């Protein structure tokens, strides 16, 4: 069994979201823009064989198969997930720190950012046929964010193998950022010198910044980010800076204007 290493300080305030909600209410536009589309059509995704190509500014580029990724020491972490749309969940992920994988490829001194890419196969992902975003889905982190112990690569949730609609077989979970930063079904990781382009930022740069840290003070241009509705709750609750992980991550952004770097 997998040890639980991180959980909400107050489980009464942050009860775990029912698995059914977390597996039927998803944003995974590769399978359609409806919240139920991923659960309906992600069955088409083949998660074996699966490889992640890791390269760029690294001493030891490699292609690593899912079998080897599953050999990392696993832990369970119960994180809050805050979607940029104003809803949130509490999900028990199973995975290992992204830093552990990055250490293996030995980033060089030139590496300052990490770029991620989702699978881009219209045969398995019907949503890729519509031009909602500039496919493939890409995301990025600054290297120090990526090396932060809270940044997780998840291969499971609720003690089970990650369901396809939640980003199988392996996805990123960055709990202090809006959910879209937590890229799903990763096929490529690249360490780079310059800030990499990211899918939502390319589509609407004013609305989705590169950092996209959860911040109740900085509204999305089209809606307020001050409150959120926890899925299953009736009324809204206040959104916390860095989604409540400020103590752990705020120092990463010391001296930065977070209104500018939204």
């Amino acid at each position, binding site marked *: 069994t997998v040890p639980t290493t991180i959980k909400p300080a107050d489980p009464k305030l942050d009860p775990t979201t029912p698995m059914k909600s977390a597996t039927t209410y998803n944003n995974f536009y590769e399978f359609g823009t409806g919240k139920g589309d991923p659960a309906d059509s992600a069955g088409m995704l083949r998660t074996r064989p699966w490889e992640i190509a890791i390269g760029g500014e690294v001493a030891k580029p490699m292609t690593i198969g899912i079998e080897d990724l599953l050999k990392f020491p696993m832990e369970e972490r119960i994180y809050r997930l805050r979607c940029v749309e104003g809803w949130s969940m509490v999900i028990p992920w199973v995975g290992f720190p992204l830093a552990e994988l990055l250490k293996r490829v030995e980033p060089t001194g030139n590496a300052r950012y990490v770029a991620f890419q989702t699978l881009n196969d219209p045969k398995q992902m019907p949503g890729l046929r519509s031009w909602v975003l500039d496919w493939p889905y890409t995301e990025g982190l600054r290297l120090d964010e990526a090396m932060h112990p809270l940044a997780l690569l998840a291969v499971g949730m609720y003690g089970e193998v990650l369901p396809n609609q939640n980003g199988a077989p392996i996805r990123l979970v960055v709990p202090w950022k809006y959910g879209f930063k937590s890229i799903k079904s990763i096929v490529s990781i690249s360490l780079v010198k310059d800030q990499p382009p990211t899918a939502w930022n390319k589509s*609407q740069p004013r609305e989705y910044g590169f950092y996209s840290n959860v911040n109740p003070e900085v509204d999305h241009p089209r809606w307020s980010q001050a409150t959120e509705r926890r899925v299953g709750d009736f009324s809204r609750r206040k959104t916390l800076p860095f989604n409540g992980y400020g103590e752990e991550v705020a120092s990463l952004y010391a001296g930065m204007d977070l209104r500018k770097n939204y």
Partner: protein
Amino acid sequence: MAAAIHIPDLRAAANAALTSRWAKPAVFMFALIPLIWTVWLAYTGELGAEPVLESVKASGLWALRFLLIALALTPLRMLTGVAGLARFRRMLGLFAFFYAVVHLSTYIGLDQFFDWTAIWQDIVKRPYITVGMGAFMILTTLAATSTGGMVKRLGGKRWRLLHKGVFVAGLAACLHFIMLVKGWQTAPLVYALICIGLLAFRRWPIRLARRKEPAVRTRPAAAPRSAEAPEPRFPDGSSPARRS
């Protein structure tokens, strides 16, 4: 082999059905189905993980659908020559308003839980909500002036001009939908295209059916106007159903 289908017979049958005394109650009941269905799903917990947001979305979508259906009746009547379709314009337009009321109330009462400060900030700060509220104000005005008495009071010309506002409301509703989704999604654009198409039809009408109107009257010409009558006559003798 197949029996020949006579278009005029079909048209007459459609007209007979649409002008029967059961047609309006039937359409009325059908128009309530989305509401009953959504309430039922919410009650049984089948509305998904975010029932509040789902009910806001569903009611908004049905408001837009009924608005477009109401706007499609005149083109449909002109295309098919089925005059009876015109009887339902006001009722379906009012259903669009009804679902817009449900949409706004669920947003205010369920989504924001009467947080008036947040709501006011939404209206002034967020263009898609400003646009949506604009559409709602127009629909409210049109609903308030939808009675035969109001046609008389305003005078036909002014009433017709005012009710052209329905297209502004339709376009605003489509814009509201396009603006609120993330990215360029297909569904809102399709609704907008339909709305623009229906507007363009008024400018460049196409007539497939040979003009036989008024081959079938929607009711005897001499019948006095009852409270239920859908087509109040303008002072110039025309009917709002035949215009706009």
